[in-house]
């Protein structure tokens, strides 16, 4: 049999809907296949584990050529909300969980959820601002210790 991956550590650095989901899907999929998985939320990716914000993560409608929407149109008030609503409804039809539900499920799989200390300091966030499922706020050095021996994926 070909070489297999035993462990992945996935960095989520973006705070948009399309920036958060790929990392979550990869972490969840890794656990389902029996790999060890860690998620490290850094910079705007911290929103995904930020109690007041993780239910309100929006699709980027400006500067996102993949949407095939004129940049000026994407910047109109309400466009991001409407398209986020449309996208989440489509995802719901495919039984893709919302971000808070997905993160809870990933924590249930036994994956480790961590926040980046530098980012938490930058945004003035402490442990109580972040969701209960989070294991810890850690430094980059501690992240590398956790990731040792496995693959690191940056999203």
């Amino acid at each position, binding site marked *: *049999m070909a070489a297999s991956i035993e462990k992945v550590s996935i960095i989520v650095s973006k705070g948009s809907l399309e920036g958060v989901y790929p990392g979550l899907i990869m972490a969840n999929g890794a656990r*389902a*296949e*029996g790999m060890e998985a860690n998620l490290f939320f850094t910079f705007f990716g911290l929103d995904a584990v930020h109690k007041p914000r993780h239910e309100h993560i929006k699709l980027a409608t400006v500067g996102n050529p993949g949407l095939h929407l004129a940049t000026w149109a994407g910047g109109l008030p309400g466009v991001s909300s409407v398209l986020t609503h449309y996208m989440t409804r489509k995802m719901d039809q495919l*039984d893709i*969980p919302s971000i808070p539900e*997905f993160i809870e499920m990933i924590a*249930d799989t*036994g994956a480790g959820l961590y926040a980046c200390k530098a980012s938490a300091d930058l945004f003035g966030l402490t442990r109580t601002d972040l969701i209960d499922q989070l294991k810890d706020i850690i430094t980059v050095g501690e992240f590398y210790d956790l990731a040792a021996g496995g693959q690191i994926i940056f999203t």
Partner: protein
Amino acid sequence: MPITTYAGTEVTVNDEGFFADPGQWREEMAPPIARLEGIDELSERHWQVIKFMRHEYEAKGTGPTVRVLGKTSGVSVKELYQLFPKGPAKAAAKIAEIPKPRGCI
């Protein structure tokens, strides 16, 4: 493809150990396959998942993903991972000998 014997019956398996023909599976084959997956003894909860997976596969032609299992099998996602530490999607599907679910979530 290699041939293995489970519960006195010869079966053809692929490189990952899945049966070429899921129809060859019988309940007596589950314990020896489970041992290969690191599960020494199948509890009643394991069987609940295995039987549910077989049932879903026979009804729909495809196995349930972990998310679907967690929502509909009566066993939570957390417990699924405790029962099948090597990954419920793969390990439970292998013990129930149904093709690995083709879902991303």
